[in-house]
């Protein structure tokens, strides 16, 4: 497949899974706004506004991770109920193009929520060239590793119901237990140690540091970037070698 054809396939998948379903059912946008904004509302109320800044940065990270949750459900649903993956496997479309296209299509659903958070990010005075650059880098890596996890799992599930089992567990381990919505210092020592095993801990530290919510040192930032990047590469390698494009 030529590069031009790959781009055409990519664009087609974004249109097919990102635009057409919203045209068919616009309420998808409201549903995707609801989850991160609900967290923000909850945190703002409970903390009497003191942690709202964490809610904004955490909401952005959560929005990108929700791409993975949506992707996992869609890939599983299409594979098991429609045999769509079988149709695609027996075609010139390669696995990386399929996953990238589907992952990009999920971004379309996240754009409204991201838009709201970007406005809040600017209104709260967080937007500097440095913080924006960090935010873009972190969100891209979150999107990438969440997509890799989603693809790998989706090729194993036998039914879309199994995603209902795993999605909350993944959300719990990537967004609730790690300090995405609060400073890591709020956690007890054992939980801080456990949080080190989640890539979102490093993503949150970078975003929170870039907007001044946490002290950010050059060495600390370098470590956070390195670990976040290493997690992403590892999850991509797992997807490349363990995801089932062709069934054994």
């Amino acid at each position, binding site marked *: 497949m030529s590069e031009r054809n790959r781009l055409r396939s990519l664009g087609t998948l974004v249109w097919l899974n990102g635009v057409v379903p919203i045209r*068919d059912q616009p309420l998808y946008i409201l549903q995707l706004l609801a989850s991160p904004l609900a967290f923000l509302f909850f945190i703002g109320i409970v903390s009497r506004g003191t942690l709202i800044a964490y809610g904004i940065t955490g909401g952005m990270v959560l929005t990108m991770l929700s791409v993975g949750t949506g992707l996992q459900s869609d890939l599983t649903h*299409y594979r098991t109920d*429609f045999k769509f993956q*079988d*149709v695609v*496997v*027996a*075609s*010139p479309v390669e696995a990386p193009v399929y996953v990238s296209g589907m992952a990009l299509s999920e971004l379309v659903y996240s754009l409204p929520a991201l838009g709201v958070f970007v406005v809040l990010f600017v209104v709260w005075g967080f937007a500097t060239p440095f913080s924006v650059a960090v935010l873009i880098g972190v969100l891209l890596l979150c999107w990438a590793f969440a997509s890799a996890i989603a693809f790998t799992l989706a090729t194993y599930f036998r039914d879309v119901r199994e995603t209902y089992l795993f999605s909350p567990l993944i959300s719990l381990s990537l967004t609730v237990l790690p300090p995405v919505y609060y400073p890591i210092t709020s956690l007890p020592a054992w939980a801080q140690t456990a949080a080190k095993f989640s890539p979102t801990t490093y993503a949150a530290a970078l975003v929170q540091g870039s907007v001044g919510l946490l002290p950010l040192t050059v060495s600390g930032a370098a470590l956070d970037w390195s670990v976040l990047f290493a997690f992403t590469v590892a999850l991509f390698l797992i997807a490349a070698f363990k995801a089932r494009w062709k069934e054994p």
Partner: protein
Amino acid sequence: MSNAIEARHLRKVYPKSPPGVAALADLSLDVPTGRVYGLIGRNGAGKTTFVRIASTQLAPTSGSLRVLGHSVEGEEREIRSRIACVPQESRPLYFLNVEEVVYLYLKLRGLDPADAKRRTRDVLEELSLVEYRRRPVSRLSGGLRRRAMCAMVLASDAEVLFLDEPTTGLDPIARREVWEAIRRTSRENRTIVLTTHYLDEAEALSTRLALVERGQVLLEGSPADLRGRVRYPYRVVLQGAYPREELEGLGQVSAIEGGYLVFAREAEARELARRALERGIRVSLGPVSLEDIFLDVVGRSIESEETSESPEEPEVEA
């Protein structure tokens, strides 16, 4: 004529199968280029497993399978760029309309928009789907959904098409429209592998056929070849009171509603028909159908399975 597909001693044991159970036992066959090749057999005979391996969706356990000269193990990319498949029980994504099902599939394969649009228009006309083109899949009948899936791959530029039970659920008129589209596709020197439970469909479309049972090919050849290889190539239907004892020795006799069905060789069949007419009994004489062959060969295979643990060769004449 070259072969589009060559399978040799293909074996597939699914990872979680009970010990000794193989979906494909030792399957060898050749699919000629530019022809419709029919795969028939009972449920679970191994037809879909073969299609899934040949279309690179599933890895074989052993043996070799080459599609357009490339191995399904290690040369998948070369194969995938030249094939298309309608998997068994597949259906189009519910939120697309019929036109989008075809058009977006073609664009997904990398066709340029103008070509994809032209091919979409043509295939929708050919399969009488124009009036449904803007209708969402969620509001289509099962038959129309299946037709949309067929339209999708028939409109593609693939050289080898795998159609796994493509006309299941279609009404007789729609089935014939799909048949015509398959014939037209085959005339473009494209190869079609067709699995079906409709034996009339297999007979009407296939240049060659393989009858698969328990993961092996029991019979293979053109429909005429298959007729020539069964013990009794003619069927005689007698409607009336014909003495049963006079039928013994002529061939294979079974009672049917109001008479007898006799499978016989040509000379015996003609003689029986003559005698029946002399007695004023209604008679019809003709070559055996594919369904007769299927029931005969598979029936004997089941009998041999029941009497022996090891599969036997079917009783066919060389």
